[in-house]
């Protein structure tokens, strides 16, 4: 398979391969690692200093935590995960530090307009981009428990890039709790393992509280362990929004697993990957209503798989 793939892709892969050893890239790599090690030393110095200052040591200790959580650990994780986490698709997103993030638990068919229209109809709110202003606002609204229904979501990576769209639904006007889902457009011609072709992949999880990340000690949202509940919630809201939405399920797409996401929260899933078909949305409008036979939510697996995988 490797041989055939290489022949087929020869034209596209070759330029990348021809790029020779770059001194600049090596230098950048060295600085990246050196800065990581130096920051580790800085954290150690701050920690040892914090004991020498009585009550003022608390302030120094706070500085130590800031340096550790927001500079040292992300950098160390970035270096280590580059070495040990393979960068191909394995049904998991990655955090900006390279850690394994929320599981990919939804796939979609349809174009941009259909996705945006259906999410809008299903009462999902586009999340603001992460900027200094929006970050400040989410911190303040979380502390004061004021509603912020366009609160930004942290970037997660799939196909080596951040999500294209992020949507959320705030719960009880409390920014600490929210439904949220991120969407990535698949590269052209990209196939899921197993051969199914989808346009979008999505990762939906429920933020249940604000807490400390286990891996970086940063302040972050903690997610609900049962990611299947959130997945089914997204399907339900989309299905209710437009009758033209059809759902098929790739049964046992990933074997059910227990794991941790990028913030160290446990996750559980049965491993099914529902494929939401939005291609009929908007075109036929509400009148068309698709074929009801296909719209079997979490229905018979074998037929569903054959519908999607009809490539051979």
């Amino acid at each position: 398979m490797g041989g055939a793939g290489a022949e087929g892709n020869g034209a596209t892969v070759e330029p990348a391969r021809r790029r020779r050893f770059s001194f600049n890239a090596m230098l950048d790599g060295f600085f990246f690692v050196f800065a990581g090690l130096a920051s580790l030393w800085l954290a150690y110095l701050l920690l040892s200093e914090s004991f020498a200052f009585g009550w003022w040591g608390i302030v120094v200790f706070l500085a130590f935590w800031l340096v550790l959580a927001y500079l040292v650990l992300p950098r160390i994780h970035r270096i280590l995960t580059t070495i040990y986490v393979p960068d191909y698709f394995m049904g998991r997103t990655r955090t900006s530090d390279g850690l394994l993030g929320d599981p990919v638990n939804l796939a979609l068919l349809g174009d941009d307009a259909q996705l945006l229209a259906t999410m809008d109809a299903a009462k999902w709110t586009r999340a603001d981009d992460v900027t200094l202003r929006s970050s400040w606002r989410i911190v303040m609204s979380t502390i004061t428990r004021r509603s912020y229904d366009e609160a930004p979501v942290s970037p997660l990576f799939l196909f080596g890039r951040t999500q294209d769209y992020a949507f959320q639904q705030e719960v009880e006007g409390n920014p600490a709790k929210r439904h949220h889902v991120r969407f990535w457009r698949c590269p052209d011609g990209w196939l899921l393992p197993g051969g199914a072709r989808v346009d979008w992949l999505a990762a939906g999880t429920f933020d249940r509280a604000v807490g400390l990340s286990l891996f970086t000690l940063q302040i972050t949202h903690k997610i609900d362990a049962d990611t299947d509940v959130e997945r089914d919630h997204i399907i339900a809201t989309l299905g209710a929004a437009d009758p033209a939405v059809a759902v098929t399920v790739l049964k046992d797409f990933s074997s059910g697993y227990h794991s941790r996401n990028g913030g160290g929260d446990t996750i559980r899933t049965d491993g099914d990957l529902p494929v939401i078909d939005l291609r009929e949305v908007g075109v036929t409008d509400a009148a068309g209503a698709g074929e009801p036979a296909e719209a079997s939510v979490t229905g018979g697996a074998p037929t569903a798989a054959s519908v999607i995988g009809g490539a051979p």
Partner: protein
Amino acid sequence: MSRDTTKRPAFEPASELAQAGPRDPRMRRPVPTTMGAALVLLRVLAGIAWLIALAAQWNDLIAEQFVEVPIDPDDPAVSAALWFVLAFGGVLLLFDLVMAVLISLGFNWPRIVVMVFSTLSISGTFAAWWAGDQNIALDQTLFTLALDILIMLALSSRAARDYARRNDRRLARATASA
């Protein structure tokens, strides 16, 4: 077989790993670049404060250094030495200031130059600390060291690197043809 050419494998090719992010000449200045330039600027300000402090205590310092051979503070050589030190420090700080401006404008070579100097400075301090010659306390030494390390972290980050090399022609070609 011919149909296979329209398909791509469901995994990323290994060569993808070696490739940097796509070059985007219209990329907006990322926060790490701004932070890096601001920290270099802060280092310039700290340097100015240090030079002023040095000038204020110059005569005492000279007297301390030359205990055995008493030196007349009014000797023109003393103030000439001070001016020499101030001028030398001023040129260095001016250079640093220019680097800060160029970094914030998104040039790559000032970023590399600043990182090389920070690397040398950090390594030197570390060597002295490791050998036990230097005690790093919560004062000037730790402040300078922290500044250097923060500058390193900010400027070596991926965002800062991608921004500084957003116009790199060789990389742009690789991205375009990939």
